Every structure is written in structure tokens, then in C-alpha cells.
């Protein structure tokens, strides 16, 4: 482990920029301003936590960053692509190649083995069959599930399922990892495991990570920057020194990378 954990891994370029971002929903007669004028800039390689209570708009922002949703107004630019202007087809391509997503509820397809789940994005990317199999196996081995690749998600523990989801999110080597409450359905020990993996990817591959969470403690332990949201508005934006990150990273990383 040569790179010091405490220093920033960003190379200074801007990965994500939102300008006066709005996302409104009509709910019956009333208008819900899920995202209400948020402007943020996230540098390449940053580990950012979006914090807020439920309904604060953090998940809505994540969906906008993922290209799953379009802003009502304002712009989201990810690696110089203005997502608001992309066609549906181009958005799909963006999700396929530039973004990896991890969810609280894992979102694995239950009728497929975990190997097939991990392979699925490669099918959409039309990667050749033999490459697909090899890449998927390697991805599962990297998250420590090489021995269980033919199991279905329901046969695995929550932690194992989330690791599978991580392998799937990273299979297309995206520049951006979006995590929506990744530890929300896990016990604390397993949560730590998952967070360490995410942190590892962030540091080793220089991958920009945006994590949504309502647990401030979790954010303080791992994120280098915390953005607080309330009622769709940005209320605080501060940098953070990950408390347990350096220590745990040094515990886990040498073993994990050997």
C-alpha cells in the first residue's frame, strides 16, 4: 500500500457537476420538490456521502446522477456529458459503461445464478461470450465469491448478495460508483466488509464514489466529504477525514490484495 490513505485521491478534474438541479414530482394536486436547486461539484476519485433524512432528496439526486431519471430543470454533467440532454438510448449506454450501482436491497435477479447476474451488464454491452464468462468469474473472485458463483442470490447471505451486486456494478469498469444505502440491509459487521470493499475500489481504481446514507456515523467513518440535504436543498457541504478508514484499510488491503 503505497498511497497514503489520508491524502486526496482526486486528480483535480471534475467528475460530476450539477447546476441548479431541480426534480419535481406531481403527487395528486401538490407538487413535490424532491430536488430543489442543488448545485454540487464532485472531483474525480472523491468519496462523497449524501446525507439526509428520508425524503430529503438524496436518492433522487442519486437517480439523476445514474441517468435513471431526468431533471425537471438544471443540468447534471458527468464527465462532460450533460445527462439532461442525452437521448434514452444514450442514457442507457451511459448507465451501461460509465456507472455502477449498488442498492440497499441488492437488486439481484433471483432467477439467475450470481455468475449470470454479474454477467448481465456484459450481455447488454454485447461483450463476446468467452470474455464475459472470464470477466464475471474474475469479478466474483475479487469479491471473494469464486466458490459460490453458481448459487442463486437467495442461497446467499445479505453480505454475499451485496458483494455480488458490487461485482456486477464494477464489471463494466465504470468511472462512477453510486451506492444507495449499501449497508442498510446488513448487520454492522457485514456492513463494514462492504464499505471496506467500496473504499478499496475508490482508492485503488480511482473510482468516484457517491454514497447515499442516513447514517452519519457511517459517512464519517468512510467518506472524505459529506453533503447534507434537507427538503431537496443542500444544507451543508463539508470535507471529512475518514476515522476508521486508514486503519482498517491497512488491515484489510494488504490481505485483500496479496
Amino acid at each position, binding site marked *: 500500500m503505497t498511497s497514503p490513505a489520508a491524502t486526496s485521491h482526486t486528480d483535480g478534474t471534475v467528475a460530476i457537476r450539477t447546476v441548479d438541479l431541480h426534480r419535481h414530482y406531481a403527487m395528486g394536486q401538490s407538487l413535490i420538490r424532491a430536488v430543489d436547486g442543488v448545485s454540487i461539484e464532485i472531483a474525480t476519485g472523491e468519496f462523497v456521502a449524501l446525507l439526509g433524512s428520508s425524503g430529503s432528496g438524496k436518492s433522487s439526486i442519486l437517480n439523476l446522477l445514474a441517468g*435513471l431519471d431526468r431533471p425537471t430543470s438544471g443540468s447534471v454533467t458527468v464527465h462532460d456529458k450533460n445527462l439532461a440532454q442525452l437521448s434514452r438510448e444514450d442514457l*442507457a*449506454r451511459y448507465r*451501461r459503461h460509465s456507472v455502477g450501482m449498488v442498492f440497499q436491497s441488492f437488486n439481484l435477479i433471483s*432467477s439467475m445464478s450470481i455468475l449470470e447476474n454479474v454477467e448481465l451488464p456484459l*450481455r447488454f454491452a454485447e461483450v463476446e461470450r468467452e470474455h464475459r464468462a472470464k470477466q464475471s468469474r474474475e469479478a466474483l473472485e475479487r469479491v471473494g465469491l469464486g466458490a459460490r458463483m453458481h448459487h442463486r442470490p437467495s442461497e446467499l447471505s445479505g453480505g454475499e448478495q451485496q458483494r455480488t451486486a458490487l461485482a456486477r456494478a464494477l464489471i463494466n469498469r465504470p468511472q462512477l460508483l453510486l451506492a444507495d444505502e449499501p449497508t442498510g440491509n446488513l448487520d454492522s459487521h457485514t456492513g463494514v466488509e462492504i464499505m471496506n470493499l467500496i473504499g478499496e475500489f475508490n482508492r485503488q481504481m480511482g473510482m468516484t464514489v457517491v454514497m447515499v446514507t442516513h447514517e452519519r456515523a457511517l459517512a464519517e467513518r468512510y467518506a472524505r466529504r459529506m453533503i447534507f440535504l434537507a427538503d431537496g436543498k443542500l444544507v451543508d457541504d463539508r470535507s471529512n477525514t475518514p476515522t476508521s478508514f486508514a486503519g482498517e484499510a491497512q488491515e484489510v488491503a494488504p490481505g485483500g490484495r496479496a
Partner: protein
Amino acid sequence: MKIPDLAELALRNLRESLLRNSLTTVGISVGVASLVAMLSLGIGLQQLFSRRLAKSGLFDTVLVTSRRDLRGMGREEERNGPMPGESRVLDEGARLEIEHLPNVIEAYPDIRFITEVRYDDKPHLTMIAALPASAKSNDAFDGMQGSFFSSDTAPEVILQKTFAEELLGKTPTRGVDDANVADLSKLLLGKEVTMRYAQRSASAAQPSPPSADAANSTDAGLGGVAYSVVSREQTLRIVGVADLDPESMRGPTRAKVFLPLKLAQSLHVMQPTDLREISRAASDQPVYSSISARVKNPAQVQAVEDAIKKMGFSTFSILDASRGLQQVFRVLYAFLGIFGSLALIVASIGIVNTLVMAILERRREIGIMKAIGASDGDVKKLFFAEAGAMGIFGGIVGVGLGWAIGQVINLGTNVYMKRQGFPPEHFWAVPLWLVVFAILFAFVVSLVSGLYPAGRAARLDPVQALRYE
């Protein structure tokens, strides 16, 4: 997404809710089966009809007549054809010329006349026609009892079964079966009949026909013109009784008594057309009212017809006659096809239903797929593939089912036919093209059914879909 991946995922999804998809597929099968059953009935009937027609001949026969006979109605033809044809006479020279055309097996004059045949001292007026030796191999004489003419000049005769009954004093009944022909032939084979006929004989210089009894000559004294008409008699031995359909279209239309061709020619029987050709009759050559040209292969009938028309004659073949018939069968097909398709259309609603249900169930899965990079097109294609796969499976099973239904009904009908004293027939035919067509049709109908569900799945909002628990 690539097609093998689509197919793989589609099949996987179909297996996931096996019962529902199987039931839908069974629905398609029933639809395809009804379509196949209906159409194969139509095809079977047409084949039955065609076999009957083939039995009657003419599929490989071109009837040639002198164009002069068709004057007035054939103006256009005359303008198309070379003008020398206008005055072309259908004589032996023309016959040889036709016979030497490519793809023509033989060309023989149609000799046909109405005259009296005496049997057991009772006179019977009937139509007599001459048959060439080649008619022996003709499927028209498949059901004949006895034997064909021993030679082309033998004084022998073959009777059509209704005439045979007439000779025996029976009234013809409907639906006579083969056994009846055998009974008739037992009574008649080897017996002799006497044919009285009018001989056309050249007035002075013409040699007498071999069979003519010169002493019996009752010259009508038409010395001024080119020939005279003489009454003659000829004794003939019955060698065969044929169950040929008297209404058949094989050369000797409506003839009930058949003579060997060479014998008939040598008799110089007075023909109705002789009167018309009276100005030409001075020549020694006989003039034919019509000639039948047999063509090697039904496919070449059109070419031969054209060639003969160029020579300056009028032609007629079953091709001309069957055009109307084909029209009738096209209408029948359309009718049966529409009925058969009804069940398939109902089945296609089943596909819509199944897929819409699948969308509801797999909402989240669709959301996941979109989140990890599936485009609208990928989702749409996946649902299309599922619909198409159900269509193909349903089509394959349905064709088998339809074929089985056809076999069962065929069997049942034939049992009934046998009881009623009819020979068994093949009403049902499932040709390869129908198999391919039915499966393709099921596939296309399924894809069309998949249009709406696939579109709906593709438009699904991934954020909504993922929120849905």
C-alpha cells in the same frame, strides 16, 4: 443485446413461470392446429379434385383445332398469329408437324362420331371415340376390367361402364363401385357387338377401306362432289369395361365406346366436320376435325400450346379450363384460412395477457436491467423474443396436433365412406409448405401480440420500477 443472448434470456424467463407460459403456448397450439386442419382440408380437397382431373386426362393434352372453326371469336388470335395460319388445314401433314414439336410425345386425330351399336340384336345409339395405343398407360383406365386392345388395328372395343349396363338392360345407378364393373365385365367380355356407321369414301379413285364389304355398298351417288357416303357394319369384340367417368375431359369427351385408333382411321367414318371441309376433300389426305397432342410434362403444356398457335391452329388445354377452378379454390382457402385463424387470434390475446402479467411481475427485474445498462430496445426485444418463442413452440406443437386431427378425421371419414360403399379417399393433406407457413404465421401473430406488452415494458420508468417492492 445479441440474438443468442436474447433467446437464452427469453427461454429462461419462459421457464420461470412454466405453467402460465405453457397454457398460453397450448392456446397457440390449438389455434395453429385449427388453421392447419382447415387448410389441409382445403388442400386435400383440391388434391382430390386434381387427382380426379388427372384421371380425366388433359393435364398433359393439348387439343388442336383448325382456326377456321373459331372464326369470329378468335379475331385477336388471328391478328397475333401469322396470317398463313388462317387457311391451315388440320391434315396428316399438320399432325406430323405437331408430333415433331419438342416435348410432344404424340399427336393423334380425335375421331369421334355418334352411331348405332347393336348388341343382342338391340340397337343402341352412342358416341364412339378412337383411342391411341398410348392411352393404355393412361391413369384414366386404371379401374378397367379386361384388357386393352391387343393391337392398334384389332377389331376390338372397350365399353364405358354405364354403356355396358345399358347393353345389359340395367339402369345406371349412382355410386357404382368397382365390384359392379367386375360383374358387368364377366357378362360382356369376349362378346361381340356390331357397329353400323357411315363411311366416307372417295367417289371413284379412292381405294375401298379394308373392312368394307363392297357388295353391300349403297352409294348415295354424290358423284358430283369429292366423296360419297356409304353405310357399313363392323363386328367388334368386347375386350374391356372401363369405369371411366363419362363426363371426363380426356380426349374422347362423353364417349362411351372406344375403338383402337388405327382401326377407326381405316374405317373412314364420316365425321361432322367433313361437311365443312367439303371443298378440300378432293385431296386424298384425310382432314381431321381435331388433334390431341400429348405433352411430356404438364409444365410444358403452355409452351406447346404457343408453338401450335404459331403454326396457325387453335388450341385448348386444361390449363385454360382450370384457371376458373383455381379461383374457386383460392376463395375456399381464404374462407377456411379465416376460420382457422380465428382460434389463433383468440390465442394471441392470451399472449398479450400473459406478457402483460409478466410485466407486472417482473417490474422490478425490468428496473434492475435498465439500471445496469439495458436500453429500452433491449427490454422490448426481450419481450418480443418471449412472445416469438411461445409462437414458435405453439406453432410446432400445433402443426403436429393439426396433423393428428386430420389423420383421425381422415380415418373416420374413410370408415364411413367404406360403409356407404365408396372407395376410401385422402381428404387431408399437410404439405411441407403448410407446416412452414403455419409455424411462421404463429410466430408473426405472436410477435404482433407482443407489440403492446413489449412497448409497455420498454417504457417502464426504472425509478418507479425499482421503488416497487
